[in-house]
């Protein structure tokens, strides 16, 4: 997989992206590309702009400058649901389930509004139902299909969050701190799920603080510090970079 960038055109390319909140520059001139099939780790201290970057790429926030291309198509000006339909999915840092809907119906939302909204992909009601259960089965929540999100444990909630993002049949998935606050065994579980998704052909950008998880998962690392990209390369090389060390450990 590390030789993935066989294609000349990257799946996602970001040029000159900038975002400010009032006088605060959250992201400054970010340049990056993501190749098809990659497992990219995006790291950086708290407040370095990781989630803001994801929000800009997914259309939740509007970047003032710069341009984003996905699969050769310009995303600028598109709202979130349009980007989702093009194949860009995300999980939220804090799980945001639809709390009055059962787990099956939680997954029925993206299937109905994304997968069935794409031309030529319409599933029948029975197929949609089957797909919901299949997705729940994949993350080990099949026996809770009729339950409400409030009946789930923290790790199950994260799995539901991932399943709901995967239900959109994305080509690129942003996993925003999918493992924060989980035990080491639970972290392994989530990594296993993400690795399997990647093998199935989904390009994944992992935003994470748990370095062990990042190092074992990523084929490439990008480091953000105070809205600037300071490193981009193979994980071992990036971690040996003195600038990264300084950002994390101080002088």
């Amino acid at each position: 997989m590390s030789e993935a960038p066989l294609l000349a055109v990257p799946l996602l390319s970001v040029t000159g992206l900038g975002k400010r909140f009032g006088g605060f520059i959250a992201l400054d001139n970010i340049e990056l590309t993501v190749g098809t099939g990659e497992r990219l780790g995006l790291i950086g201290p708290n407040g370095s702009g990781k989630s803001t970057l994801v929000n800009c790429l997914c259309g939740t926030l509007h970047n003032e400058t710069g341009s984003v291309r996905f699969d050769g198509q310009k995303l600028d000006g598109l709202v979130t649901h349009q980007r989702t339909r093009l194949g860009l999915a995300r999980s939220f840092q804090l799980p945001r389930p639809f709390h009055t809907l059962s787990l099956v119906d939680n997954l029925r939302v993206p299937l109905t509004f994304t997968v069935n909204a794409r031309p030529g992909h319409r599933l029948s009601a029975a197929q949609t139902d089957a797909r919901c259960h299949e997705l729940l089965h994949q993350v080990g929540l099949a026996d809770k299909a009729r339950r409400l999100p409030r009946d789930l444990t923290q790790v199950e909630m994260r799995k539901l969050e991932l399943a709901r993002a995967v239900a959109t049949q994305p080509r690129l998935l942003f996993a925003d701190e999918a493992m924060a606050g989980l035990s080491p065994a639970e972290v392994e579980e989530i990594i296993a799920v993400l690795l399997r998704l990647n093998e199935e052909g989904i390009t994944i950008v992992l935003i994470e603080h748990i370095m062990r998880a990042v190092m074992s998962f990523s084929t490439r690392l990008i480091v953000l510090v105070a809205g600037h990209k300071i490193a981009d390369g193979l994980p071992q090389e990036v971690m040996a970079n003195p600038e990264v060390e300084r950002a994390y450990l101080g002088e």
Partner: protein
Amino acid sequence: MRNGSFWIAAAGFGIAFVALSRVLFTNEYYFFAAYVVLQYIVLSTAWNILGGYTGYINFGTGAFFAIGAYSSAVLHKMPALTEAWFGIATPPIPLPVMILIGGIVSGVLGLGTGYLTLRLRGVFFAIATLALTVVVQTLIVNWDYVGGSRGIYIIRPADAPLGGGYIQYLYTLMLVLAVISVGIARTIERSRLGLGFAAIRDDELAAEAGGVPTLRLKLIATTLSGALMGMAGAPLPYYVTYLDPTSSFNLAYAVNSVAMPVIGGMTSWVGPVIGAILLGTIQQLGSVGFFLDLNIPPTFNLLIVGLLLILFVIIAPNGIVGLVTAHRRKRAGALAAVAARRAA
């Protein structure tokens, strides 16, 4: 029950109800009272499409309702107007057509309001709808053609189209409207649209990330909700025969159409119906002095609504429907536990 069979059952119920009421309602007053209860079924069901399904609280029911009523008042004066302008009096417009037009006008108002205000969340949206009532009322008060603040007298046509008195005709039309709105609400609840509405209510950001076109869906909700409210208001001029801004923009419409779904239960189509029948009936009985043989002013009705509303918000925030489903779930859980113990 499938959607088709529900519509047939609802229509059957409506016809049976009309037939039965012609036999049972020995006094015209019953038609007057039933009309108001039915009108509240339409209003609270319409309110719930936006407030209950998508979670946007609308305090502007009075505006949409009055726009429907005033559009009928304008249409009522149409024959006189064409005679004055062109010398030919056009035939009077039938009430069902007025209801349709009132619905369209209020629907457009709903769409416009939605477009301007749906970027606001939560309490800010509610405040904007409250302001809408004030704006629309000010416009009507200053519009002389429909009587301004003096109000306007509407003379009912001499004959009622369905036999019986004119009030029976109004009552039948309102019953049809109630059946249609409840049918629409239930159809939405079980459709793709209803799923999208529920996702918006639970978490708008997550809904959008899941591909739900939230703005478009919310506009559908405001338009539909506004249109149904306007349709409920359209026959009002013929019901009261004297239409004025103070009574047609009455606070009672806004308060009741919020209180009824809250008391009945907001997540299902049954809730607003139960709430409207319960509160509507209590208010009708109250206004004829059924409970206490005292001379209670009609404003006392709103006090009852307020007290019930507070009671329900504290004790049963999911309304009567919520109480029933919680009870059922508890029983199902207990039964499952017993079965598990037996098996073990």
